C-alpha cells in the first residue's frame, strides 16, 4: 500500500490537468490549475513522511531523540501554498479584465472573436 500517497498525487495532478485542457470557463481553469498545484503538496508531504515519527515541533513534551518527519518538505509546502494563492489571485484579476473587455469567459469564444 506504500504507493497509495504517490498514486493520489498523480491522480490529483492529472485530474487537474484534464480540467485545464477541457475548460470552457477561465474561472474554472484557474481553479483547475489550483487542483494541479495541490498535487505537489500531497507529493511533497508524502515524500517527507517517516513511519511512526511525529511532527517536527519539539515542545517540552517531545524529546528530540524521538525524531520527526522531514521538516524541509513541510517548509517547501508552505512556500508552495503561498505562491499558489498569490498566483491564483493574479490570474483571477486577469480574468476580470478579460470579462470587462470581451464579455466572455470561454477561451474558445475569446479566440474566435480575435480572428
Amino acid at each position: 500500500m506504500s504507493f497509495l500517497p504517490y498514486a493520489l498525487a498523480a491522480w490529483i495532478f492529472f485530474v487537474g490537468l484534464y480540467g485545464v485542457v477541457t475548460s470552457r470557463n477561465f474561472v474554472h481553469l484557474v481553479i483547475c490549475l489550483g487542483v494541479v498545484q495541490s498535487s505537489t503538496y500531497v507529493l511533497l508531504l508524502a515524500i517527507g513522511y517517516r513511519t511512526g515519527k511525529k511532527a517536527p515541533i519539539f515542545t517540552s513534551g517531545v524529546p528530540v531523540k524521538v525524531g520527526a518527519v522531514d521538516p524541509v518538505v513541510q517548509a517547501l509546502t508552505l512556500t508552495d501554498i503561498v505562491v499558489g494563492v498569490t498566483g491564483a489571485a493574479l490570474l483571477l484579476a486577469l480574468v476580470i479584465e478579460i470579462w470587462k473587455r470581451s464579455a466572455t469567459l470561454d477561451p474558445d469564444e475569446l479566440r474566435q472573436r480575435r480572428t
Partner: protein
Amino acid sequence: MSRRTRLGLFVVCGSVLFALFVWGLAGLPAFGTFNGEYGQILNSVAGTERHVTNVVSSIVFDYRGFDTLGEEFILFAAVIGVALLLREARDDRERPRDEVRSDAVRAVGLMLVGPTILLGLSIVAHGYLTPGGGFQGGVVLAGGLALLYAAGHYRAYRAASPQGMVDFAEGVGAGGYVTVGIAALVSGAAYLENFLDLGTKGTLASGGTIVVVNAASGLAVAAALVLLFHEFLEEVMYPE
C-alpha cells in the same frame, strides 16, 4: 484547434507525461522510509542552535530565510499586479448599502470577528514555538477582517481597513524582512544571518531574528490578503 483535436492531443501528451511521472515516482523512497539528511540534521540541531521548538519555522525564517525573502516578494509582486490591473480612480461615491439581513448570521459572524483576529495574532506570535507562523496567522488575521464584510457590511469592512493603512502595512511587512537582513550585514554577520540574542527556548523571547522576520511576514501576508479582498470587492461593489 477544435476541441476534439485538443482532447486527442491531451490524451497522447498526457500518456507520455503520465509514464514519465510514474517513472519518476518509482525512483522515490518507499512511503514512510525517507531519510533526508538535511531534514534530520535540522530536526536535531534547530532546538540548540536557534532555541526554537518549531523546526519548520526555523527553516522558513532562518536556515532558508533567503528563499522566504523571494517568496515574500512573489507575494508582493502578485498583489501589486492585482492592484495595477483592478485599481481604478474611483470618486467618493457613497458606499453601497449591503447590510446582511439575517440576524443570526450577523450576530454570530460579528461576534467571531474579535476571537478570529485574536487567534490570528496568537498563531503569528507563537509561530516559532507551536504549529503556525507569520504566513498561517496572517491569513487568519485577514479572514477576521473579511468577516466584517461577510457578516456585517462593506462599509464597516472598509472603515476597519483604510486603503492607505493597508498599503503602508504591506510595505512595512515586506520592507521589514529586507531590513532585518541589512541589519545583520551592519552588525558584521552575513545577510539574514541570525545576529540577535537567541533568548530562552520555549518562550516568546526566543529565536533571535526569527521573531522579527516572523512578525514582518505576518504583517505582509495579512495586508496582502486584505488588499486582494479590497480590489476584488470593489469590482463587485461598483460594476462598470
